[in-house]
């Protein structure tokens, strides 16, 4: 096998047909039979019974990870153990920025974890400058010849991270992998990918950084958690980044299985904007009839007179055109773009917002995490809708006022009732704002 082909197998699981024995790699069956009627996929560990995904001639396949290419009893998975064929001792980091004392402490903690090969939770509020805190740790691992991956459940986050890391590590080749990219897989020392893509790896990474561990679709998805486990080497370091750790992570911290670093304040030292509840009864009926409702009118008037840009969150895609119509009618001089998760022009529209060409985005929850837009205010319409978990609300609030010039964004939550989720989110933000920064 030529070296280039071989590289494809380093720390990866490549699908090979069952009769293909010509490769010099470890072969495992695609599917294992557990008993008479149950099988397990060896890529995503999903167990399934005979009936689901049954093929003719008594063959079976896994439907859970089929998006990445079908795993069936007809195939083997080929792997070559990660050889770490990277130059050691190279310092790639060119980033010149300054870390606050609190950020420096977290950054040092990450390096300690890399040296001790233990796992760490980095509990940092949104806007705490998480990415910058990773740089020194990543640089340290690269210098040691480690293979490094930064993974996020969200495509947007990966797309945004890629150019930032390229700029900060100029001599380093980075591969970006997600379902929407044409970029081909390459064997590189640094990988940025979605957590879905981790399913294609096995024992590849010495350092695996998982951003937004609590975000959809990672939260509660057993196969993706298995992927995080599988993609890393047995000896290595996993860093979990989140503003809202779930009970599982908190338990691991409590039991001493996971070290923790705290960063309660945002990087500019200001507090998180608190959520203000604005009761607005019958808003959906009003917008359906083509009328604006008072909270929305007041919000837009404020934005207009203060010349501040904004995000309006809407729980359901079908409500987007209705609200868009109402706003265009009442505020014709405000430039707004509706955008949702299935919008093919999503990235372009976010770009328009970033460059200041539109005044605001009207969006479903998909933008709630990771995408950085400076100096904005937020209105969450229908914040009592059950699609908003308290973690999501905290994240959304964290979008507001992400800059030194204007750290105090407004966050309004329009709702008909104050749900438990809204109350929990408000309490969490207050708690984090009360926390003292330990330096």
């Amino acid at each position: 096998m030529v070296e280039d082909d071989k590289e494809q197998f380093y720390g990866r699981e490549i699908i090979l047909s069952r009769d293909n024995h010509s490769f010099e790699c470890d072969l495992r069956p695609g599917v294992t039979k557990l008993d008479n009627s149950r099988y397990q996929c060896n890529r995503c560990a999903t167990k399934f019974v005979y009936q689901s995904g049954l093929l003719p001639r008594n063959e079976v396949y896994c439907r859970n990870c089929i998006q990445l290419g079908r795993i069936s009893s007809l195939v083997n998975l080929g792997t070559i153990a990660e050889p770490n064929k990277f130059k050691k001792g190279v310092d790639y980091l060119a980033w010149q920025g300054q870390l606050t004392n609190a950020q420096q402490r977290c950054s040092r903690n990450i390096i300690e974890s890399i040296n001790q090969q233990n796992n760490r939770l980095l509990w940092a509020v949104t806007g705490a400058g998480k990415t910058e805190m990773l740089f020194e740790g990543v640089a340290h691992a690269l210098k040691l010849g480690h293979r490094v991956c930064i993974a996020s459940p969200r495509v947007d986050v990966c797309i945004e991270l890629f150019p930032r890391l390229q700029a900060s590590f100029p001599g380093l080749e980075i591969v970006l992998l997600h379902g929407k990219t044409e970029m081909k897989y390459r064997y590189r020392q640094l990988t940025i990918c979605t957590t879905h893509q981790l399913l294609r790896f096995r024992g590849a990474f010495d350092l695996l950084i998982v951003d937004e561990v609590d975000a959809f679709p990672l939260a509660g998805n057993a196969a993706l958690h298995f992927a995080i486990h599988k993609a890393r080497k047995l000896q290595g370091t996993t860093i979990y980044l989140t503003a809202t750790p779930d009970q599982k992570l908190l338990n691991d911290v409590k039991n001493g299985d996971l070290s923790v670093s705290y960063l309660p304040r945002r990087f500019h030292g200001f507090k998180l904007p608190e959520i203000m509840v604005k009761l607005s009864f019958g808003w959906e009926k009003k917008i359906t009839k083509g009328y604006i409702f008072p909270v929305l009118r007041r919000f837009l008037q404020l934005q207009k007179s203060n010349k501040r840009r904004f995000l309006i969150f809407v729980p359901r895609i079908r409500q987007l055109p209705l609200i868009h119509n109402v706003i265009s009618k009442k505020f014709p001089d405000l430039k707004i773009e509706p955008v949702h998760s299935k919008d093919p022009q999503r990235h372009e529209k976010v770009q328009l917002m970033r460059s200041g060409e539109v005044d605001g985005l009207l969006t479903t929850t998909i933008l709630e995490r990771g995408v950085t837009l400076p100096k904005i205010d937020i209105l969450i319409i229908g914040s009592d809708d059950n699609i908003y978990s308290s973690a999501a609300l905290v994240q959304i609030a964290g979008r507001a006022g992400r800059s030194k010039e204007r750290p105090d964004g407004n966050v309004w939550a329009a709702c008909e009732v104050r749900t438990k989720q809204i109350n929990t989110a408000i309490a969490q933000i207050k708690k984090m704002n009360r926390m003292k920064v330990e330096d």
Partner: protein
Amino acid sequence: MKDFFNQYKFMGDYLIGSTFAITLYTYLNQIRDQFDLIIPIPIDKSTWLTRGFNQVVGLAPKFDWNDILVSNRSDNQKHQYQNSRIERIARNNPFQVCEESRNKLREKSVLLVDDIYTTGTTLRHARDALHKYGTKRIESITLCR
């Protein structure tokens, strides 16, 4: 439709074929009486090893198909260069009627079923393979063009 075939045939999600099944199964049963044999276009050996199912049969797995054609695409193509054009066309035909069914075709009316109509070559080959054994009438349907 395009999305369906992409997921079903190319990604190999066999199970979603049965969402189609109800319509096709009903239709095939309605026209069952008009034909002696209803034959799916077969897939070759290597497709059995990779896809693992016949995409036509999988669209109505419970239907009583007369699965009497076999395909040996790869074996035939090896010797292409030795033959004249006419021979090549004949030899190029990947389809054969399986042995035990050859004597059952005389004076029979046959319906061929394929999933996607592309050039018509596939159906012509299947037709030629059957015709040799004295069929009376051969018709064909494809599920989408």
